[in-house]
């Protein structure tokens, strides 16, 4: 499975999981976490296309991915600052989902996470053929 397939399948799975009759707090945290990783792998895919080797990174992988994307793609005009901020926002939400159990998720917040994810996925889809 490549990164695009993973990102698309994670989205399909997240939409289905959301409809399951389960504890919605758990479902929300699960969805947010998995959607972030779908987006994170898209970021790594862009870096690989640029000649980077994120698979070899062992430390600060997530922040490094964001920093390298900013340098190689946003600062060069290939990727919008909005898309980069979308990925950053998804990372923040993932931290909230996995580490801050005392911070609840609002229903509208999960709707936004889906829209932000699609925003990032769509921009990456458009960018990839040119790389």
């Amino acid at each position, binding site marked *: 499975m490549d990164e695009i397939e993973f990102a698309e399948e994670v989205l399909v799975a997240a939409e289905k999981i959301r409809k399951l009759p389960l504890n919605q707090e758990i479902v929300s945290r699960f969805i947010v976490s998995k959607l972030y990783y779908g987006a994170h792998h898209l970021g790594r895919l862009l870096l690989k296309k640029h000649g980077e080797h994120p698979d070899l990174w062992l430390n*600060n992988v*997530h*922040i490094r991915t964001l920093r390298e994307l900013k340098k190689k793609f946003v600062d060069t005009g290939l990727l919008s*600052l*909005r898309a*980069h*901020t*979308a990925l*950053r*926002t998804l*990372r*923040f*939400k993932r*931290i*909230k989902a996995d*580490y*801050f159990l005392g*911070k609840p998720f*609002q229903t*509208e*917040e999960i709707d*936004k996470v889906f*829209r*932000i994810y699609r*925003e990032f996925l769509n921009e990456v889809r458009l960018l990839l053929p040119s790389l």
Partner: protein
Amino acid sequence: MREVEEFVMQIAKQQFGENLLDVDFWGPFDGDDLIGELILAADLPEQDALDKLGEIYNKVEDMGWTVSLGWIVDSTAQKE
């Protein structure tokens, strides 16, 4: 950390204006100097919020800090 908080608050106020009610700072986390959640009085389209957040990130990084931020709409304001 206090210095980062004050700077983020200042820039967040510039970007979101009166729509910013507060910033709930959670502290340093996993490579970030600071993480926190902006609490807004009213909702706004994601694209607008992302653009404003992007400006905050740029200004904070110009100062040499790394932060992660999200935003939520104040739940009590939504009910009114």
